[in-house]
């Protein structure tokens, strides 16, 4: 389930809100906490010319240049996560033990054109 989107939608590449509910996934029986979390995702365009705030690489800048010359042959760079953060989860394993595990790269904090 996704909470209502921000009021000022931007077409540019940036993090978008995505709330993952473990009961929607059907995992509420074994995940103790959290019941869900704000995972986010990356969405939006990487247009030419690439602005600095789009966290682009040199390669992505050149790719957008080539794309502007040859839109059919070369795609635009992709809008992808460039900084993710971990979350911790408490759950029961298959032997009914309680486990606390730290999972890396679970939340999208920043996106970039790559």
């Amino acid at each position, binding site marked *: 389930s996704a909470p209502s989107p921000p009021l000022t939608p931007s077409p540019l590449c940036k993090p978008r809100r995505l709330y993952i509910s473990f009961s929607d996934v059907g995992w509420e029986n*074994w995940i103790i906490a*959290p019941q869900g979390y704000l995972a986010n995702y990356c969405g939006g365009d990487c247009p030419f010319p690439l602005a600095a705030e789009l966290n682009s690489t040199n390669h992505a800048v050149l790719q957008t240049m080539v794309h502007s010359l040859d839109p059919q042959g070369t795609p635009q760079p992709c809008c992808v996560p460039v900084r993710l953060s971990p979350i911790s989860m*408490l759950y*029961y394993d298959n032997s009914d033990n309680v486990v606390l595990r730290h999972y890396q790269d679970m939340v999208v904090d920043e996106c970039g054109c790559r």
Partner: protein
Amino acid sequence: SPVLATELSPQENSLLKSLGLSAKPSPKKPVPVPPVLWRMFQKRKALPWPDKERDSCRVEELNVPGDIVRVFADQGRFLPEGQPQGWLCLRKLLFFNLSVLEEGERLTMAQLELQFHHNSYQAPGPGQVLELRLYQASPRGLPQPQPGRRPLVERSFVHLHKSLLFNLSAALKMPGRSLALVLEISASGRAGASGSLRSLCASADAFSATSLLVVTLGQQCRAGRSRR
């Protein structure tokens, strides 16, 4: 062929695999969450980003590397007291099924906790102590006391507290599929004090629960360390 409702979709399977699970857990008798795990979870949730990232492969509360903390419940049973030397108050097999530990995990800490209903085992007289011994036993067959065998842990107490912690990291450096220990608590003191030693032992039923907290470094963290 029809797909059983209990079967997992390939997507769900792959998600579980990426979380380090071979199957979807379905707890039969969910146990309460140990307070120590709740505390760690809440503390980590409140951490700001840079700290959260930095500490994701470390268990700060226990000051050890690790990203997986498990609490194993004891599946052992009380044992006959056998041939006691002095006043043997309690003899119990402690058995922990460690088969969920994955191949690539590296154990960084193992802590045994013995819990009592209250602060019992108060030695009533001077010179009287309670002795606690932990022996490593073979998971196969009934463990038998062996004369001259050195215990893994040996402590003397004038007063046993509600919760006792023992570091078993060294004993579990090469963990197998299970861990079996024999716990003995006995009372000793001056000759002729058998009455008070007996009363000292009488509170043996105050023994409440045993658990084993195990911290490991999973493959995700180990790979990250190697890269660095």
